[in-house]
C-alpha cells in the first residue's frame, strides 16, 4: 500500500469536512470542493452547532438520507448578502466608461453571474433604462441557489433598505427620482415591472455549468472570493469564452485577475472598479 499520499497532515475535522463536501457533490451535484476552506469550514461548523448535530459524520449521514436537511445546510453554506448599487463608484464607471461602447452595438447581452437576490441586476437595469439601452438589451441573471433566484424574480426588497439604496443610487451618478423605480407597499419596495422585462433569471452553477451565449458584459462580483484558485481559473476561463472580443468583465471591489490563468486575455480599464476588457486578439 502506498502511504505517501495519505491524509496524515489533515486533522479529523478537516477529513470530515472533505468527506461531507464529497457526499454533497455525489448525492446532489453541488460542488463546494473548491471553495475557500476557511469560510466553508466556519459555515459548516456553525450549521452543525445550530442544527444540533453532535458530530460532522451525523450531519453527513442526515443530509444523505433527508433532502430537507441538505437544503438547510445549503442555505447556511451560501453567502447571499447583497445590496442595490453596492460600491456606487463601480456603477458610475459602468455608466461613463462601458455604456457609451455598448451604445455602438445593435444588441447587448449582459450576464450577471452569482446574482443572489437580484439587487445588482435591478441596479444595472435602471442604468440601462436611463441610458436608453433597455430596448436593445437582454440581461441573464444566474445563481446556483434556487431560493435566492425565486426572490430575485419577485423584485421585492425591504423598504427599510431604500434610504441606503437611494444614497447609493445618487453616489452612482443617478439623477432621476429613485422612488420612480419602485412601488412602496407596507414594508416592501416592489421594483417596477418595466425593469424586469429584459431580465431572465435562471439557475447556473459556475463550478460545473458552461457557456450559454455570447455576452458583451459579464459581471461577477463578490462571488469568486469564495473560490480557491483552481475554481477561480475555471470561472474566468468560462467568462473569457463567453465574452465577445472587446467585451467587459466586472469583478468585485476586492477581486482581481492578477495571477489568474486568463490574465493575459484581458486589459484592466479601471483598477479601482475592477473592470476588465477582453483583448482584440
Amino acid at each position: 500500500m502506498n502511504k505517501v499520499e495519505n491524509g496524515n497532515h489533515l486533522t479529523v475535522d478537516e477529513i470530515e469536512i472533505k468527506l461531507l463536501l464529497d457526499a454533497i457533490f455525489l448525492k446532489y451535484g453541488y460542488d463546494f470542493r473548491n471553495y475557500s476552506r476557511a469560510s466553508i469550514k466556519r459555515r459548516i461548523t456553525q450549521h452543525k452547532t445550530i442544527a444540533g448535530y453532535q458530530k460532522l459524520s451525523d450531519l453527513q449521514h442526515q443530509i444523505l438520507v433527508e433532502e430537507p436537511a441538505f437544503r438547510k445546510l445549503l442555505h447556511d453554506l451560501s453567502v447571499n448578502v447583497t445590496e442595490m448599487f453596492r460600491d456606487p463608484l463601480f456603477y458610475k464607471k459602468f455608466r461613463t466608461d462601458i455604456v457609451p461602447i455598448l451604445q455602438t452595438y445593435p444588441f447587448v447581452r449582459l450576464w450577471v453571474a452569482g446574482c443572489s437576490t437580484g439587487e445588482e441586476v435591478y441596479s444595472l437595469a435602471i442604468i440601462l433604462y436611463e441610458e436608453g439601452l433597455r430596448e436593445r438589451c437582454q440581461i441573464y441573471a444566474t445563481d446556483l441557489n434556487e431560493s435566492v433566484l425565486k426572490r430575485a424574480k419577485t423584485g421585492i426588497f425591504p423598504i427599510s433598505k431604500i434610504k441606503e439604496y437611494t444614497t447609493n443610487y445618487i453616489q452612482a451618478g443617478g439623477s432621476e427620482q429613485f422612488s420612480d423605480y419602485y412601488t412602496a407597499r407596507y414594508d416592501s419596495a416592489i421594483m417596477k415591472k418595466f425593469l424586469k422585462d429584459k431580465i431572465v433569471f435562471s439557475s447556473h452553477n459556475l463550478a460545473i455549468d458552461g457557456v450559454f451565449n455570447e455576452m458583451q458584459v459579464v459581471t461577477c462580483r463578490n462571488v469568486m472570493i469564495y473560490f480557491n484558485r483552481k475554481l477561480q481559473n475555471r470561472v474566468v476561463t468560462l467568462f473569457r469564452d463567453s465574452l465577445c472580443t472587446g467585451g467587459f468583465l466586472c469583478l468585485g471591489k476586492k477581486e482581481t485577475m492578477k495571477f489568474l490563468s486568463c490574465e493575459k486575455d484581458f486589459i484592466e480599464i479601471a483598477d479601482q472598479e475592477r473592470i476588465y476588457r477582453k483583448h482584440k486578439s
Partner: protein
Amino acid sequence: MNRQPKAIVLGVSTGGWQALNRTIPELPEHFPVPLITVQHMASSSDNILVKTLDQASHLTVKEADEKETLNKGTVYIAPANYHLMVEKNMTLSLSTGQPVNFSRPSIDVLFETAADAFGASLIGVLLTGASKDGSLGMLRIKNRGGLTIVQDPKTAAAPLMPQSAIDLIEADYVTGLDELANLLVELTC
C-alpha cells in the same frame, strides 16, 4: 507555546488607530512573522490611514488582498466591509458574509480561522475596543495551544473588549501598549 510562531493576529476597535500607531512603527525591519490585523473601520476611506501607518513603519503595512500569500515582516489590515480569514496554506480569504458581533470585519472570524490554520504556532493579541468581538476568537486560540496577549484594560482607551477576553480566558500576557512591541519581538525573534 511549544513552537516558533508562524503568525500574529491582532484585533482592535475603538481607539485602534492610536494603538496601532504606537505599536507597529516600533517593530523592527526583520520581524520574522506576518501580522494580520482586524481594526473595526467606519469606511473604506480609511485607506489613507493604512498608507500613513506604512510610511511610519519599518514593516510593510497594507490592506489585505484576496488570496494573498502571507509574508513575514508584513502587516495585513482587513479591508472595510469584508471578513478576513486565514487558510491553512498561508493565504488570506475575504468574505462579504453577515456581520459577526455587529462587525465586518470581525475579530472572531479572523482569530478562529487563524487558530484552525496555525494551531499552537499562533499569537493572538486583543487591544482596546468598545465591543465584545474577539473574546471567542481568543478562546479558540488558547484551546488550540496558541499564545494570548490582552491589553491591560486599565490602559485601554475603551476597556470593554480586553476585559471581555480576560473574563473568558486566562491570558498568557496582560500588558500595556508601551511594552507590546517589545513583547512581540521577544516572543518571535
